[in-house]
């Protein structure tokens, strides 16, 4: 959040001094504030010359092409903000503008030195506040901004680890009219944005290769390498290769994409609170193979939610006993619990004095002029000149939107001043800064937008390290002044110039992975759960898509009598297997297409295509760090493909096209699982899910067919099609489908990869490989259950069935299907109880 700036409409506009036809020629920044590209005379600034020259031949259309390419890449990468923020699961795509923010070499060095100092200073302050509190007793800081700050955690008092409390600091910087970078806010808990910054660079490097070298842009890879090293060096003790995990609130969190992306890039497991447990004041990761000791936790969970035993009892994002494990010095949390207290803007006016007192240095980075209203004299001074100020809340976590007094209407102003009078401690006044502007593409035109640069500094083993880049966000409209992602802003890549071109490519290099000395981290149980359901949802989706496709093909076909009957059959199957609501009296005459449409278009229907694709993506996102980039891209494409076609354009042919693409996408996903995944427990659980679901779906269809009574023959062609076994049957029997041979092929034929027998044999083989050290009985129970299913299947014999009266044989088949179905459901429950048990604990 930045202070409002004066309306641009009042300002004169500066025309750009560029050759005619240059894409910048239409750009008109307002006078009176700093523009990143043009100086006061409209001349391109020196930092921008290389870029402006390199792109001098580009038209708006060229830029548009790049934008489209960028949007496609971001979609493929599943880059979102606010994933699954509502029940409908609408994820907002991440937005990136093609034009970056450029930061010159000299000014970056200055900012970096300032950020390094700020990190040292805030750490010194935290050490005092959570220790001797001399700064409060001796009057360096008003006690109220610490003791009255909801971010001050008494539970963190007195703990003193080896690592600094604040290991990663994010600073929101803005450039004032004088061109100097100024601090607007500190992010000291779990600063977000580094992962998005990396994603922005990755995407831009793809669509704009070469430009980084031409402009001498500093790469980001080194910084992340330093971070990886720093995280390992913060491990409390050297026990060989330390285990570092990234603790995320989970896929419902607004920045989950970044958590998964970062964990994957740094090569650390992505975990949630339920994956961790504290035993003997040490933190362990619960994996399928047993408990694995954790040394360092990168925390993306707010500190008050980190330990239900000592902090908020109603929050389940953390792990009971974590605060005590920190005190014992057995684990390092980055950032430490309680660091959020220094995010308060009320601290700003005291920092220059504290910097002299604690570090013996002058504060290097300018800050937005700020006063804490808990001080009487300052409050009176602010109220005497009230139109100069923006009133903001002093402490995080208080719901209050900043109010610019000069622009607020009378009732708002009165309400704010009343609140300030009643509780002055909770507010600060900040002088609005005229944020700098930057050209930004909007609907094919360049517009000036306000910007804020979030820079990052890290406490490295050899002193502070500043990321040569960061996350730049721009205001939503030209006059807009509120810059935050919560308001649907747009982001930009941030280029720090001055890179020696010989130092290699500027795109981030993939991390060098050295196989650790210790065994791999293991699969967290919760992730195994998600992989299992990813498998089930993938199969379920394919099943529904095949059913709808069969129906549509017959609907769109030649409308022969046979096709009409088969259409009835497929609709009946859809009804029986619960995907399609049974028709009421009024629906009996409705065209099949109208009845099928909700299965493709209703985002709320639980068993319809859009919802299944979304669940598949949800499970995949929770196991994101186990999937290859290609698999993840495919999952995102499937999710996009499942988005309903515009009803006006949804002809049967268009819908069939969509369904065919989905089938192909699902086949590609299954192929990647088969060809690209390591045969570990992650893969095993994914396949367990697939096999269980596929067997269940097949049995359900066969059971329905067997119960069809008089007319099983009409069921058989669609059934073979649904089970993808048409060719196999033709090759084996060279005849029109008959009931018992079809059942034999789909249920008992071990060589048919679509048959029940095939799935059950697979289960029997793979359950023998399940991890065992979770209990004395281990995975034997799953193996026994799978073997029992196989022996139940052996009662299905073509010979004996053929000898029976047809009605009795059908009855027998239906019974076998039903009992195997029940058995599989119990098998799934057994797995769940054994491996995925994460019931919520209770606090008392």
């Amino acid at each position: 959040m930045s202070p409002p700036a004066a309306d641009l409409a009042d300002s004169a506009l500066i025309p750009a001094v560029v050759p005619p036809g240059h894409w910048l020629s239409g750009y008109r920044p307002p006078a009176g504030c700093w523009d990143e590209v043009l100086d006061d005379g409209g001349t391109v600034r020196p930092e921008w010359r290389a870029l402006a020259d390199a792109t001098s031949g580009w038209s708006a259309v060229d830029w548009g092409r790049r934008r489209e390419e960028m949007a496609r890449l971001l979609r493929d990468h599943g880059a979102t903000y606010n994933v699954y923020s509502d029940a409908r699961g609408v994820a907002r795509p991440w937005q990136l503008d093609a034009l970056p923010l450029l930061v010159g070499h000299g000014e970056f060095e200055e900012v970096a030195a300032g950020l390094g100092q700020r990190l040292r200073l805030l750490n010194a302050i935290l050490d005092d506040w959570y220790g001797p509190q001399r700064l409060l007793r001796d009057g360096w800081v008003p006690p109220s901004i610490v003791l009255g700050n909801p971010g001050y955690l008494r539970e963190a008092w007195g703990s003193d680890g080896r690592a600094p409390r604040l290991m990663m600091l994010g600073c929101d910087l803005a450039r004032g009219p004088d061109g100097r970078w100024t601090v607007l806010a500190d992010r000291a808990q779990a600063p977000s944005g580094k992962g998005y910054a990396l994603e922005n660079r990755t995407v831009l490097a793809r669509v704009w290769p070469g430009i980084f070298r031409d402009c001498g842009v500093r790469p980001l890879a080194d910084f992340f390498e330093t971070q990886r090293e720093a995280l390992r060096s913060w491990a409390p003790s050297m026990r060989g290769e330390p285990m570092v995990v990234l603790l995320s609130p989970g896929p419902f969190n607004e920045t989950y994409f970044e958590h998964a992306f970062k964990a994957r890039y740094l090569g650390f497991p992505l975990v949630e609170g339920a994956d961790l447990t504290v035993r003997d004041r040490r933190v362990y990761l619960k994996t399928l193979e047993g408990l694995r000791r954790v040394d360092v936790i990168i925390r993306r969970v707010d500190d008050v939610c980190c330990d239900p035993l000592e902090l908020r009892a109603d929050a389940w994002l953390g792990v009971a006993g974590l605060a005590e494990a920190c005190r014992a010095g057995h684990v390092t949390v980055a950032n430490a619990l309680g660091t959020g207290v220094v995010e308060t803007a009320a601290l700003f006016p005291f920092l220059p004095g504290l910097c002299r007192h604690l570090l013996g240095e002058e504060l290097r980075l300018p800050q937005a002029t700020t006063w804490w209203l808990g001080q009487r004299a300052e409050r009176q001074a602010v109220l005497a000149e009230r139109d100069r100020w923006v009133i903001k809340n002093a402490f995080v976590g208080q719901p209050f939107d900043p109010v610019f007094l000069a622009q607020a209407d009378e009732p708002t102003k009165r309400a704010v001043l009343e609140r300030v009078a009643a509780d002055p401690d909770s507010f600060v006044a900040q002088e609005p800064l005229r944020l700098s502007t930057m050209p930004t593409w909007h609907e094919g035109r360049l517009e000036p937008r306000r910007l804020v640069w979030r820079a990052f500094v890290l406490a490295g083993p050899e002193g502070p390290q500043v990321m040569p880049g960061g996350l730049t966000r721009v205001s939503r409209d030209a006059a807009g002044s509120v810059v935050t992602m919560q308001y649907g802003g747009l982001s930009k890549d941030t280029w720090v110039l001055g890179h020696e071109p010989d130092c290699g490519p500027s795109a981030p290099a993939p991390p060098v992975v050295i196989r650790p000395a210790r065994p791999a981290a293991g699969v967290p149980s919760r992730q195994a759960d998600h992989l299992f359901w990813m498998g089930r949802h993938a199969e379920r989706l394919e099943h529904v898509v095949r059913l709808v496709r069969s129906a549509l093909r017959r609907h769109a076909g030649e409308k022969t009598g046979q096709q009409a009957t088969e259409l009835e059959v497929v609709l009946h199957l859809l009804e029986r297997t619960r995907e399609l609501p049974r028709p009421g009296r009024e629906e009996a005459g409705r065209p099949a297409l109208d009845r099928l449409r909700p299965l493709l278009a209703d985002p709320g229907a639980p068993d319809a295509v859009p919802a299944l694709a979304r669940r598949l993506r949800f499970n995949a996102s929770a196991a994101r760090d186990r999937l290859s980039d290609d698999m993840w891209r495919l999952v995102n494409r499937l999710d996009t493909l499942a988005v309903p076609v515009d009803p006006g354009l949804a002809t049967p042919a268009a819908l069939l096209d969509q369904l065919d693409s989905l089938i192909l996408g699902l086949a590609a996903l299954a192929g990647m699982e088969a060809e690209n995944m390591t045969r570990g427990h992650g893969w095993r659980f994914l396949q367990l899910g697939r096999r269980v679901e596929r067997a269940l779906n097949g049995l359900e269809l066969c059971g329905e067919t067997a119960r069809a009574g008089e007319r099983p023959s009409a069921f058989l062609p669609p059934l073979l099609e649904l089970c993808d076994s048409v060719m196999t049957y033709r090759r084996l029997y060279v005849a029109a489908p008959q009931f018992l041979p079809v059942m034999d092929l789909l249920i008992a034929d071990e060589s048919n990869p679509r048959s029940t027998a095939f799935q059950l044999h697979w289960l029997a083989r793979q359950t023998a490989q399940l991890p065992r050290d979770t209990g004395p009985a281990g995975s034997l129970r799953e193996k026994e259950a799978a073997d029992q299913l196989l022996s139940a299947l052996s009662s299905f014999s073509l010979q004996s069935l053929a000898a029976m009266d047809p009605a009795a044989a059908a009855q027998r088949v239906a019974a076998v299907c039903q009992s195997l179905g029940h058995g599989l459901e119990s098998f799934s429950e057994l797995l769940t109880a054994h491996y995925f048990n994460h019931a919520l604990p209770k606090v008392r």
Partner: protein
Amino acid sequence: MRYHIVHRTLYTYERPVTVSHHRARLGPRALPHQSCPWHEIDIQPEPVVRVPRVDAYGNQSVYFEQAAPHTQLEVVARSYVEVEAPPAPDPASAPRWEDLVEATRGDGAAGAVMATEFRFASPLVGPDERLAAYARKSFEPGRPALEAAADLNRRIFTDFTFDPVATDVATPVLTAFDQRRGVCQDFAHVMIGCLRSLGLPARYVSGYLETEPPPGQEKLVGADASHAWVSLFCGEELGWIDLDPTNNLLPGDRHITVAWGRDFLDVSPLRGVTWAAGEPWLLVGVDVRRTG
């Protein structure tokens, strides 16, 4: 006065619990007028780890973990405590309450810096205009703080009904205030809320109460469980003065102090996180015996 105190807590779980984490705050504090020559906590089953800690308020606590299946958890704290009645303060000698508000503003001006902490909203008790209005009837302008607080103490005692079923540990202070009912925790929270609403620093004190009256003395209210009352900062000279709104008195030698904090959450005697199905059955018993 000397006391032998036994505080027993028993959890019975529906199904065996394997892993659980707990923090107990059961050890009486050492104070100018109180000493605790002997104290022990017996935990069954024997925990895999137990670690003492002195928290940010100076309270003693014990962290412990269970790691083997059990269906019952029993925590028994036994303490010998010697209490002298603190000298009865002269309420009229306390500073005017407005001066105390000024001295504990915590805005950087000189004053009683560290008492400031207890003037802010805490998770369970924050300032509120209704509480302030109720409190102002006692806090007339210029009145000595302790005199006004003793009057508030008396009014809460009179206006509120002690009712063990009206509230539970999670009842918000305003609910208790509106229904004018509750137990000692609610009485204390209401009074703290009143004092903080005026800008005065007030803290929550947990401890025990001798409920069996010595001959010739009145029986005090507080049942056989932990007790709670309030402490008000009355300036550097008088320091913190305790008030018990449940009994309308200033604690003497029949109150045993265990811990203090901003509200109940800072001092809850036994808190735990268990991975268990169903609600456990909880039994708490406190026995405070005079030994001489």
